């Protein structure tokens, strides 16, 4: 399983004027993997992720996702990916079920498919009693879990999560990761950015970005060994210490 490459970037670069947000990054992600994309604020994580989702066009370089060239076949690519943005991104004035119906609808799912899927998701999240509540009235943790379920609702090959657990309490974070594992178990490749080093430990492999370049890429255990560190915190510290860009 580890051999099938689902994300492959080659020298992916994004410049904003003189500023190089991501500088020639190249890496591969394998099918079914949970790939952690780490870095300090301003390191270029979000820019890289936006390029991978087709929200932003790279200045140079190429990326292939699920066998599609991201910039030449964007429409074909879109069906195979899911995305959860940094901002909470459901419609607060729609109910839980209406949100699921809407996102299922724009991914072209049939009414029956949506209904069956929604029932399962609501049960899994324990939201079936609240399905007619407006999303705006739910606590943040619930919203985040729901947003993740929406991002994988159409069973994409790959899901991109941009700091999905920001501002969420540790218990909900743990539950969130259970959802991630469950999705990975279904064969969905998970590409996740995070600031939490304990979360980094949950990933199969992680990459560390510093000042727009990938400084390290390996499994958490290998990285700890390589930097002679006891925790990911130390690894991160070791790598990010030389960073020139400060928090944005």
């Amino acid at each position: 399983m580890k051999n099938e490459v689902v994300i492959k970037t080659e020298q992916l670069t994004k410049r904003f004027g003189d500023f190089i947000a991501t500088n020639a990054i190249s890496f591969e992600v394998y099918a079914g993997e949970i790939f952690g994309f780490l870095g300090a604020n301003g390191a270029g994580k979000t820019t890289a992720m936006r390029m991978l989702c087709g929200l932003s066009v790279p200045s140079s370089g190429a990326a292939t996702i699920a066998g599609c060239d991201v910039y030449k076949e964007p429409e074909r690519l879109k069906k195979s990916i899911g995305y959860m943005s940094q901002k909470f991104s459901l419609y607060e004035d729609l109910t839980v079920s209406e949100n699921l119906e809407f996102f299922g609808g724009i991914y072209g799912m049939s009414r029956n498919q949506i209904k069956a899927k929604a029932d399962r998701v609501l049960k899994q999240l324990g939201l079936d009693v609240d399905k007619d509540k407006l999303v705006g009235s739910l606590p943040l943790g619930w919203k985040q879990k729901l947003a993740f379920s929406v991002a994988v609702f159409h069973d994409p090959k790959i899901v991109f999560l941009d700091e999905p657990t920001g501002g969420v309490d540790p218990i909900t974070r743990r539950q969130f990761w259970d959802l991630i594992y469950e999705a990975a178990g279904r064969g969905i490749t998970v590409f996740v950015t995070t600031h939490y080093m304990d979360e980094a430990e949950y990933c199969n492999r992680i990459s560390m970005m510093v000042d727009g370049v990938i400084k390290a890429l390996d499994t958490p255990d290998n990285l700890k060994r390589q930097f002679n560190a006891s925790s990911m915190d130390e690894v991160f510290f070791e790598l990010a210490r030389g960073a020139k860009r400060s928090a944005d």
Partner: protein
Amino acid sequence: MKQFLSFVRKEFYHVFRDRKTMLLLFGMPIAQILLFGFALTNEIKNTKIVVCDYAHDPMSEQVIAKLEASKSFDVVKQLMSATEIEAAFKADNIKLAIVFPNQLYQELNHNNKATIQIIADGSDPNTATTVTNYATSIIQSYMRDKFPQPDLLQINTEVRMIYNPELKGTTNFVPGVMALVLMLISVLMTSVSIVKEKESGTMEVLLVSPFSALMVVISKAVPYLVLSFVNLIVILLLSVFLLDLPINGSLPLIVFESLLLIITALSLGLMISNITNSQQEAMIVSLMGMLLPVMIFTGFMFPIENMPKPLQVISNIVPSKWYYTIIKAVMIKGVGFASVWKETLVLLGMTLFLLVISIKKFKTRLG
């Protein structure tokens, strides 16, 4: 198609669940129509006047009766002496005083000429002019009835206001309010609803989905097109049944021209959503950018012909001006497409231009 319907349904949820949007959407046209129709009127109704009759002959009495019989005037007092006139103006909110000279009838018979004095409150020049004209025309019509064949040759002018014989203010205002409401509502709604998606982060999610950017624009536009259309019908119903304004021209033509204006406004809203990033910003740009130009340059508040030349030129780029010209002609004069095709062409050109630009801009922003 299914994707599109899901989107449109979502848009309607947004509109119907937000009380403020609903209020703006349906409250504004009704408020505007009532405001312009009833409050901002330049008609003269039951204007209070006083008379000072020194003649007390059948002639002066007949004229006074005639003044009183008209809907325009209400004779509140008969003064004994002209010295009381100023006090009446100051105390009783009088707009006009009419003084009949001693021996009016004899004078007219002997000299073929007599003078009736009309004194108006010049502190409000517009009203003064209008009421003076009304009073003069009443007196003249009395004279014509009384002396059908004047002894001397004389030229009488007979003024007739066609299309709007009663000089009703609403005749002018309704097409103006239609232009104003359709412009404001459509621009505001579209820009705010698109910017809302940007603000909440849902726009990114939409753009990552297989739903194309063009479809996002179309699915945003369609619900607001429908709602603006409902608005149009509300305004038309109000003006016909509440303001007694007839629709003399063809209804389908009015609807077609209104659709053009709505699409223009939707494109403008789309453009505004491209350059703004928050709902407040979009609202301010929409209101500030639309309200004043539309009010000033549409022509229903201030006649464009009276403006300085540069402003007249500028007024040509305001779409609602063309719409107003068309609707006034079709609705009130009852003309057909043959008379307004030039204006329609201009409006159509503007619509297409704005539509293409705004869609293009929307697409490049995603790249």
